[in-house]
């Protein structure tokens, strides 16, 4: 007959308790960030047809760009594309300091990334899906947004900028 209980050395028990507590603290920190501090990650927004999203006149991405919703509040429809020339449309948007911008980004071809440098905006752009994120620009400057997912030969030159004046 063998034992049914695990023999645990007292040092090891203490170590396991410390590990457990540590991980609970980390998990709590993440929970607070997720639910308390309003850290945003993309959620299901809208499915689109990547074959027509850039051309269908009813699609906002057939005419990508900035739309002013109300004073200082904007929607930015951005098309990330590898074909023909690895670029974001529009390549630049210019907004006043303090603007709150909601980005709606999609791709008519392959997967891309969208990371606005020096901000918390960093997400995937998938054909067939819309990535949405809202961010307030409270300091003036030029914020490059860059492609962070491999999208073909021109991946390394694919970028654009938010100019905050």
């Amino acid at each position, binding site marked *: 007959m063998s*034992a049914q209980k695990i023999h645990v050395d007292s040092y*090891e028990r203490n170590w396991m308790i410390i590990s457990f507590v540590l991980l609970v603290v980390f998990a709590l920190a993440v929970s607070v960030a997720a639910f308390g501090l309003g850290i945003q990650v993309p959620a299901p927004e809208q499915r689109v047809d990547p074959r027509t999203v850039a051309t269908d006149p009813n699609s906002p991405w057939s005419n990508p760009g900035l739309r002013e919703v109300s004073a200082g509040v904007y929607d930015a429809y951005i098309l990330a594309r590898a074909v023909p020339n690895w670029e974001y449309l529009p390549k630049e948007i210019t907004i006043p300091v303090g603007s709150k911008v909601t980005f709606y980004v999609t791709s008519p071809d392959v997967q891309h990334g969208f990371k606005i440098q020096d901000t918390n905006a960093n997400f995937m752009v998938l*054909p067939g899906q819309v990535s949405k994120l809202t961010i307030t620009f409270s300091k003036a400057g030029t914020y490059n947004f*860059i492609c962070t997912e491999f999208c073909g030969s021109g991946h390394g030159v694919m970028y654009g900028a938010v100019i905050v004046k």
Partner: protein
Amino acid sequence: MNQYQVPTAEKKLIGSHILVAILALALGSFFGPLQAFEHAGWDFYVYLKPLFKSYYQGLTVHGVLNALVWTTFFIMGFLTFNVVFGLKRPLKNMLLAKVGFWMMVVGVVAAAIPILANEATVLFTFYPPLKANWAFYVGLTLVVVGSWVEGWGMFMTYTAWRKENKDERTPFIAFASLVTALLWQICTLGVAVEILTMLLPWSLGLIDGVDPLLARTYFWFTGHPLVYFWLLPAYISWYAMLPKQAGGGKMFSDSLARLSFWMFLVLSTPIGFHHQYVDPGIPPIWKFLHSMLTFGVFFPSMMTAFTVVASLEYGARKNGGKGALAWIGKLNWNDPSVASQLLAGILFFFGGIGGLTNASYNVNLVLHNTAFIPGHFHLTVATAVTLSFIGISYWLVPYLTGRKLWQPKWATIQAWVWFVGMIIFSNSMHVLGLLGAPRRVPLNLAPYVPEEWNSRLFQVGLGGAILFISGTIYLVVMYMTVTNKQRVEKEVEVPIAESMQDPAATPAWLDRWAPWVYGSIALIVVMYGPMLFELIKNISLTSPGFRVW
């Protein structure tokens, strides 16, 4: 000392795995430094143009050969060794093992042809709608299915052993290897479904489009446990071999070692959404739940850290080691196998911290797809795993071939050079990531690189150069070993650290498979089922393929 004699046929089979693994490492590692040099502004791709078209083709070769081929072949060989040596029994069905091995070899060749022809420059994640030549997908399928077949052979061997030894505890190295093989069988279902239901028919022109989000979800179902498939064989060596090699240590806790392997089986698959934190189309609540379980799977790694360090310390103190940390000096650092694995373990400490960082839902927003990620996994798969496998090969290859390790001093130097090179490379990649540098970009050409990145980019190149030297030393040592005229006097002793407790004291429930397997499947169904159901219900095969490289 009388150790179990592994039959010649098994030795040959295991040796063939290690040979393919090292060949893959050799070619794949040639391209690693080329990426690093590019970052530092030394572009060698210009000179390779007739053969290799781009940085990305090189990156594909590097990722596929090093992360997928080197690891999978080494692991299947090492697990087979552990099952046979641990159970003291030949394989139940040698033919099955050979069929599996040759399927994997044919698969590698089938995938390599389009990669070398620049028809599959899709990197090792092959995210659609980047569309590779169909042979690439066929090749990957064969590698996965071949590894399944080999896994079935291991399970059959275990079942036969169990019939012959009804009441014994499964010896630890065999037990842990079987769990690793089982984890692989479960988790590769994701990528198998991805390829067979979407990518392969699509590349053959049978369907017009794919669903990129669903493809990513299938991929990461496999993609994270893949990390544990790489890591667990290194853990087996750290738990059950390294303490013996480092100074006659014993395994501190057999029961908790087994418990940690079960925890890896149960927890490492249902956490894949932590790779998709910033994907659209997946509700944040699932991302959050997966992040919580990701912290959970860190727990058995913490247990491993304790047991391994305690086992090493036990041996070192027996040999006169003293002090809180000074005992580390008493470990057998002159043995290249020991030095490699200890250095691998030290860097893994930092790799683990980086992993927790990535797993943190919020911090990931700063790091996702930046250079921080390759910085991280060069500490884990490219050091904790690779340098440990290198260390294992320093005794396993002489054991299998009967030839003496050539110049053990150079083998030890190799491990230290890797350690130094990786600290420089990985540190600079982590910092670049924090500064915002994206991964998978030839940064020397990128138009948005600010001045402040330059010194770090140079360090990436420097680290790459040092790693290249280390890799070269390793290949020379291996080549000189397998062609060495000096043979070992008697068979190399397989290092096995006995358990401090009587293995019979290990509770029987740690040797029962069914509850853990059902538990693992149940947790996967709970954590993946609803979202996969949702995604499959709404599947839209609307993305045509692109060849944009």
